[in-house]
Each structure stands twice: as C-alpha cells, then as structure tokens.
C-alpha cells in the first residue's frame, strides 16, 4: 500500500499544484515540496524499518502492492520494492526535492503547470523503479516522457523545441522496441506455459532459445542504452540537458538516465542471463567508449551545461561497464555510481543554472574570476567538480573504484581503458573551476553568491556525497541482496565472489543473518500466481563454466 501511496502522492500533488498555481506560484511550490518531502519521509521510514531484513541475503520484496488491472491479458498493477528499488526511489525523492528547490526563483511564469509536469514526471519515474509487471513498467516508462517533453518545450532555453522533440522521439522510438521485446517474452512464456502474464517473477522463468533471448535482450537494451545513454545513442542527451530548465536538467541527469541503468540491472540481466553474458564484452566496450568519448567531448564544449551533459555520458559509461561485468563488486559499483552521479551531476547542473540565472549566459568563454564575488559558489563548485573527477573520500571515487575493481576480474584491457576516464575527468573538472572561478575574465561581472536556499540544498547534496564516500556500507548493504539475486541469475558462480568477499568486505559491518538452508538460495520468492523454477531451470551455466576472470584461477 505504501508503494502506491508514493506514486499517488506525487500525482495528487501535481494536480493540486496546478490548481493552486493559478492563484499563487508560491503555493504550487510549497505543495510540490510537501508532496516530495512526504515521499522522502515514507521511503526513509521504509528503509529504517526494513534495514535489518535488507541485510540478509535471500530476502523477498520488502513491500508489495498488487491489484488486477486488465486480467484478460494478465496485466496487473503490481508494484514491489527490494533494496535496489528502495535506493532508486529514495533518489527520486531526493533529486525531486533538489529540482523543486533549485527552480524556486527560476520559474516565475506558469509555475502551477510547471510543478504539475515536474511531479507527474517524477511519478512516472517512481513507477518505473517500482513496477514489477512488465506492461506496467512500460506504461510508466512512456508516461514519464510527456511531462518531461513539456518541461523542456515550455520552460527550456533558446533551442527548446528541437531538443524536446529529439528527446521525445529518441526515447519513444527506442521504447517501442522494448515494447515488442516485452510482448515477445510474453507470448513465448504463454507458448511454454499456456499462461498469459506480464509478471516479472513469472517471466523470469521463461525458457528461451538462445537466438530468441538475444533478440529480446537487444530489444530491451536499445531502450535502456538510449536512456543511459550509451555511445551510439547518446545524441539526444546534450541537446535535452542543455535546453532544459535547471530542474529539467537535474531530473534528466539525476533520474531519467538512471532508469536505463536500472532497466539493465533489473530486467536485461535477470531475464536474459545467457544473452547478457554473450553481450558482456560488447556491453563493456560500449561503456568504455562512452567513458572516453564523453570525456573528450566534454572538454571540447564551450557551453557549461553542454559540458556537464557530456560528463554524464562519460560517467554513465562506468555504469555500463559495471553492469555488464556483473560480478559483485562491479554491480555494487554500478549502483553507487548511479546514486553518486545523480547527486554530483545534479549539483553541477544546479550550479550551472544558478550561474545562468545571474549571468544569462552559459558560455564558459565569457566567464572568469567569480571566486572573488562568490566564494561559496566557487567552493561548492570545486567540491562537486572534484567529486566528479573521483577524489578519494567522495562517493564517486568509491563507485568508480568498485566498478574498476570488478571489471578488472573480467577483462584487463577494458579496465585499463576505463580507468583513463578518471584521468580525463580530472582534466575537464579542473578546467571548469579554472575558467569560471579563477582566471582573469575581461569583464568580471558582478555575481551574487549563493542564497541560503541554494546553499542548504547544495550542502545537503555535499553531505550525501561525503557520506557515500566515507561510509558507503549502509548503501551497499541495502542493495546487496538484490544485486546478489541478479548476479546469481547470470550463473556466474559463487567462487569468484567468495574470494572477493574475503578480500573486500568489512567484516565488522556485515550483519549476522540466519544461515539459509542449502538449495534455498532463492530470493524474492513471493511471486504471484507462479512458482519459481528450480535452480536447474535451464537458464544457468554449469557451476564451473569458465567465464571471464574465473579462467584465470
């Protein structure tokens, strides 16, 4: 029930904000803020109350909501939450709060409709992270597009129509391929079992021919790689990020991109384990190309928001590498990267928005020497630039390190190339600081420093990055069981991770869980209407199949 509440609060808050916005922009802002705060509190409550359970491997969903929707087709309104979706839902609420606070003074016209779109977009994203019915997932996947389209198209900058249209067509077209893949899976499952259902847990057991699995996985991957974005499909991102209003950029970078990564982790790998292993090196290579190409393009940009947008391409490459390396460390790193990138890039967009609000330009060439007038802004920017370059002690370092450590066990050359991303990010990260806050600048325009609102918002984001950098274990514990389930599905055996666990986990932080009986290593077994297949369900590799790093031993 609490899950559906999370979405309903956002939807109702959006409608209320729109209605109130006709009279007062401030009322719309406050209503949206309250709606998101309520969501945030609910998620925190869920987290605290289930933290013990999350730490134990083999847990089921921590919360679930089920309602028949179109029973004739086996479509259900089925939401469920495990550690991974909990983290992502928390991120939605947090980034949502940031988006509303950062547009507090930026959006003066039509504030009601703006907040309506913002909240409905967030509701769609929340739904994506919670849906475990594939039809419902696609429903939410599409639902989040229209509000974002309007956010960019109405409140965006100069070239907004082009950017909004490009964003919409890219994501919608790629989503349709996923839709076909979902239907393909649905009919194949029905052919095998005579039972029409879109339920995630039931579809997990679909036995697929390798060729079918590869085609279907490709359908899903196209949608997720466009959202992520992975390199050949990244084209929409710089335009959309640059032209969107600040809140739109924050949500795009912080949440929309994460839906792609989440989709790979939640759907592609568990549903098509063998196919994902076949795609493994291709996926990792695409990630590496993204890391290097994104960093290079970032350095070449003259527009501040465009620069930050390309750093997203680079950083999301790490998520791609981590997801496809698919061992414990790499997956943890991928999730860490999703969270840290959301916060740090969101903050950079907020700073870019703050600068644009003050200077009415995003041209880096016209900026310079603002540290004098705006030392707080400079300090905050330095913090997030360093976070984005992966300074130890900050969350992004933990994330990228984990990804690289995991990928190292899979493929050395790819890891070496990926680690170049850290070097390149130092180049553009420091360059931002140098050219905007240091340097002469022929026309040292007066720049007002950050206001109390902006400062407290960015302060909270800094706290999160610091927390994740210094003490990442609670976050890792939260997602551990979900990632374990994903990794198990790929059939990569325990051997590797046992070995890694000894080397890398912090024994004093891990909780003691009741020992699980042998043969019951089945997480999330509370499926609706179907039972889970035996581990010998035909999907897994033999336990000693030599794959990747295992070959080395």
């Amino acid at each position, binding site marked *: 029930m609490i899950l559906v509440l999370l979405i309903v609060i956002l939807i109702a808050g959006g409608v209320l904000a729109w209605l109130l916005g006709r009279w007062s922009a401030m009322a719309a802002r406050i209503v949206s803020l309250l709606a998101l705060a309520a969501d945030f509190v609910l998620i925190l409550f869920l987290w605290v109350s289930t933290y013990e359970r999350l730490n134990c491997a083999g847990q089921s969903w921590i919360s679930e909501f089920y309602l028949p929707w179109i029973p*004739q087709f086996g479509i259900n309104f089925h939401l469920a939450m495990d550690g991974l979706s909990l983290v992502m839902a928390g991120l939605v609420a947090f980034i949502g709060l940031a988006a509303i606070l950062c547009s507090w003074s930026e959006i003066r016209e039509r504030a009601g409709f703006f907040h309506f779109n913002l909240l409905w977009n967030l509701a769609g994203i929340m739904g994506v992270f919670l849906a475990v019915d594939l039809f419902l997932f696609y429903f939410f996947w*599409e639902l989040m597009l229209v509000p974002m389209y309007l956010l960019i*198209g109405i409140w965006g900058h100069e070239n907004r129509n082009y950017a909004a249209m490009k964003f919409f067509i890219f994501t919608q*077209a790629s989503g349709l*391929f996923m*839709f*076909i893949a979902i239907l393909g899976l649905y009919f194949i499952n029905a052919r095998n079992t005579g039972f029409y259902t879109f339920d995630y847990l039931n579809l997990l057991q679909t036995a697929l021919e390798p060729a079918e699995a590869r085609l279907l996985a490709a359908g899903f991957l196209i949608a997720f790689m466009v959202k992520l974005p992975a390199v050949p499909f990244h084209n929409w991102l710089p335009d959309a990020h640059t032209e969107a209003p600040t809140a739109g950029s924050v949500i795009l970078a912080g949440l929309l991109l994460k839906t792609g990564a989440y989709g790979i982790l939640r759907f592609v790998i568990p549903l098509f384990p063998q196919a994902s292993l076949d795609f493994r090196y291709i996926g990792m290579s695409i990630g590496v190309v993204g890391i290097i190409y994104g960093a290079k393009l970032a350095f070449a940009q003259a527009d501040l928001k465009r620069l930050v947008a390309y750093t997203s391409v680079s950083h999301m490459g790490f998520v791609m590498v981590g997801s496809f390396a698919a061992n414990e460390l790499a997956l943890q790193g991928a999730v860490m990267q999703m969270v840290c990138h959301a916060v740090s890039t969101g903050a950079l967009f907020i700073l870019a928005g703050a600068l644009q609000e003050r200077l009415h330009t995003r041209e880096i060439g016209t900026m310079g020497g603002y540290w004098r007038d705006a030392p707080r802004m400079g300090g905050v920017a330095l913090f997030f630039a360093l976070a984005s370059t992966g300074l130890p002690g900050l969350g992004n370092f933990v994330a990228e390190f984990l990804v690289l450590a995991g990928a190292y066990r899979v493929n050395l050359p790819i890891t070496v190339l990926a680690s170049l991303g850290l070097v390149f990010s130092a180049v553009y990260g420091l360059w931002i600081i140098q050219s905007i806050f240091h340097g002469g600048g022929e026309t040292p325009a007066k720049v007002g420093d950050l206001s109390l609102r902006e400062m407290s918002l960015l302060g909270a984001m800094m706290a999160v990055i610091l927390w994740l950098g210094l003490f990442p274990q609670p976050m890792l514990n939260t997602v551990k069981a979900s990632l374990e389930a994903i990794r198990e599905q790929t059939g990569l055996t325990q051997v590797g991770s046992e070995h890694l666990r000894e080397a890398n986990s912090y024994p004093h932080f891990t909780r003691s869980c009741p020992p699980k009986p042998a043969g019951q290593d089945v997480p999330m077994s509370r499926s609706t209407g179907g039972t889970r297949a035996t581990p010998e369900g035909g999907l897994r590799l033999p336990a000693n199949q030599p794959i990747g790093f295992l070959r080395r031993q």
Partner: protein
Amino acid sequence: MTLVELHEMIPLLILGGAVVPLLLTVSFYRNLKLTVALTVLIFIAAFTSLFFAPKPVRTDGSLLSMDGYALFYIGLFLAASLVVALLSYGYVRERKDDCQEFYILLILATLGASVLAAANSFIPLFLGLEILSVSLYVLISYLRGFTRCIEAGVKYLILAAASSAFLLFGIALFYAECGTMDFKGISEILQIQGMPTPLLYAAFGLLFVGFGFKLAIVPFHMWTPDVYEGAPSPVTAYIATVSKGAVFSLLVRFFFIMGAHQYKKLLFLFSAIAVASMFTGNLLALRQENVKRVLAYSSIAHLGYLLVAFIAGGDLAVEAAAFYLVSYFITTLAAFGVVAALSGGERDADSIEDYRGLFWQRPWLAAALTAALLSLAGIPLTAGFLAKYYLVAAGMKARLWALVIILIINSAISIYYYLRIVAVMYAEPDAGQNAGRTAFSSSPAAGVALCVMTLLLVWIGVYPQTLITIINAVINYAYPF
C-alpha cells in the same frame, strides 16, 4: 419476412422511418433547435433499441444478419453520429441559415453505415454503401457558400462513383462465377473449389478497390487530404469515423466469412497495402502545415495499422479491431471537435499557426486536443496506447514480425507531427495574430460532447476493462463468422 426478422431490424427501421416525419417537420416548421433535438432523440432511440434486440437466429441466405457483431458496430456508429450531430450544431448554424437538412442527411448516412455493418450479401452491401456515399456527397458540399466545400464534394463524388463502378464489377464477377450474392453461399463454393479461380481473384481485387477507396488506404488515398480539408469539420469527423468504420466492419465480416485468410496471395496484397499506407500516411504528414491535412494523412496511416490486425486474423484480431476502432472514433471525434469549436465563421481553424499558444488562452480545448493527439500517437493514459497494444499483440500472436516492426517504426515517425501541433499549442501566444480567437463559436452541446469524448479517452486509457468486457460480451453474443 417474419415477425422476428422485423423485430431484429428495429434499429434500422427507426433510422429509416424517422427520416420521413423529420422531412415533413422541416417542410412545415423550420426550427434548427427542434430538428437537432429530434435527431438526437432518433439516435438515442435507435441506440436504446439495440439493447432489446432478439437473439439472432442464423438463417443462411438472409440479407442482413443482426448478430452481436453488427449490433456492436451499429451502436458505435449511432454514438459517433450523435456526437457529430452535437458538434455540428454550433458549427453549421454559424455558416448557413437553413441547415435542417444537414441532420436528415446525417441520419441517412448513419442508416447506410448501419446496413453495411449488418450486410450479409452483396445487395445490402451495395445499397448501404450508396446510401452512405450519396448522403456524404451532399454533406461534404453542404456549405454551398464556400468553394472549398464544393471542390471537396465534387472530388469525392467523382472518385467515389468510379470506385463504386469497380465494386459493382467485382460483385458481377462473383455472381458470374458463383451464381449467388450471398456471402455464405460464395464461401461454400470457394470451399468446394479449394483454390479461387483467377476470375475470383480478380473479383476480390476489384472489390477491394471499392473498399480501399472508402478506407482511404494507399493507393486509393488521394482524395483524403483534399476532402478532409474542404469538408466542414464535423463532416470530416464523420468521414473519418463512421464512414471508414462501416466499411472496415464490413471488410472484416466479408473476409472472415470467405475464409480469405487461407489465400496467401490476398494476405500478401493486404500486407503490401498496409505497409504502403503506414509509410505514405506518416511520411506525407510530416511536412503538412494544415491540421486537417495532418489528421487526414494520419488517418491513412491508422488504417494501415488497423489492417495489421485484419491480416493477423483470429479471435484476438476481431477484438483488437473493435477496440481500435472504438478508441480511434473517440480520439478522432475529439480532435475534429476541437477544430470545429475553434473555427470562426469565415474559415476553419486548420492552419497550425491558429493553434499557437492555445493552451494559455483556452486550456480546456487545448487539453482535449493534446489528449487526442497523444492518443493518436499511442502514449499511455490515453485510449490510443491500449489500442496500439492490442494491434501489436494481435500481430505478434500471429507472428507477423515484419509488419509489427514496421508498425513500430511508423509509430515513431508519427510522433513528430503530432508533437509539432502539441508544441505549438504550448508555445508563447502571439499577441495580435490570434486575437480573433475570443470570437469563438461553440455551443454548449459541442462543449459537452467534447468533454465526454476526452473523459472517455482517458477513462479507456486508464481502465480499459469495461470496454474489453463489452466487446467480448457483445461480439461473442452471437459469434458471427
């Protein structure tokens, strides 16, 4: 004709019979309000009578079969005609003084469409089609003061007459080969023959030219943009919905009874036509600057989508086609309803520029048009999304991979031109250009109709179960084929 048969025919009798007193009323006492009220009453009476239809007895050789399938579509046509009547009240009144005959023609056209939905033989097929067409010729050019209307009417007249000739020739060939006009009888002869003779293939082809013209699928689509643009907006809505829906319902019935799905050559022909319609409609819509033309090309593409379900065949396809048509009817009526509501007395609001900033001036109308356009594009929360899901599911079930992929690609192309209109509506309004929009002509009737259409659009998009249950119950009430 037995009493039971007479009982079955009541919906058609109401429509046909009501025209006479209405004509008499109009000749003695011309009052638009009264005429519209009577028209609405007639549609409601005919609709209500559908619920009292007797369970049909299957009598082979009957001209009309009022089975569940026919009742469902007749109900749909009556509801759509009712909406058109409401939409046109303010629109026609503004442009012409004595326009009572408009409604009489509307009832007659609906009668023709209803006959098509129930036709079980070539004779009612041709009669129904001609009643529909002749009424449409007049309806399209009804506003004699506007040259565009006359042009559109003449264009439609010439092409429709030519296509009727093809249709008649096809019917003649069928009769020459089979010696019967009855669908069932022809299908039995086809069963015996095993393979159709070349002459019968030609007959199928000629027949399809006639149908294809009405459905406006490629290569018989040339008239669509001009007629859509020239005809009064409510009439355009009528052509796009009832006229096409009637022919499509007939097409499905005819080919299912014929068992035409076993003839691979025909299916290949249909697939080619479907693909061509999708691409032609969507690609040509991209560069249009006129909303009515955009909707015209989009309707060509939508009929292409619909053909995918038709080609797929099977129970799911009948269901999918019905669901798709219902959602397409609602969407199209909402879209043209907004166009009609916005049009001033001089010209229709059909240029895209007429819509600039509409959302900030008339938020409800813009919201209705946005919902309609998103539904046409197949975005969730609208009926169009589930309709598209139905089509793709039907196609996938029949393993028409290529067609489904082409449908998906086209659906992606189509987003561009739908969103272009949406983008204009949400842009900054021009100060001077659209000042005339305040002189906006609409009647409460049109407002209510539009409001209901939009709500239905969202309702079906969120909770389709009701409609699915109705479709299943009514169509399977007496499974027709």
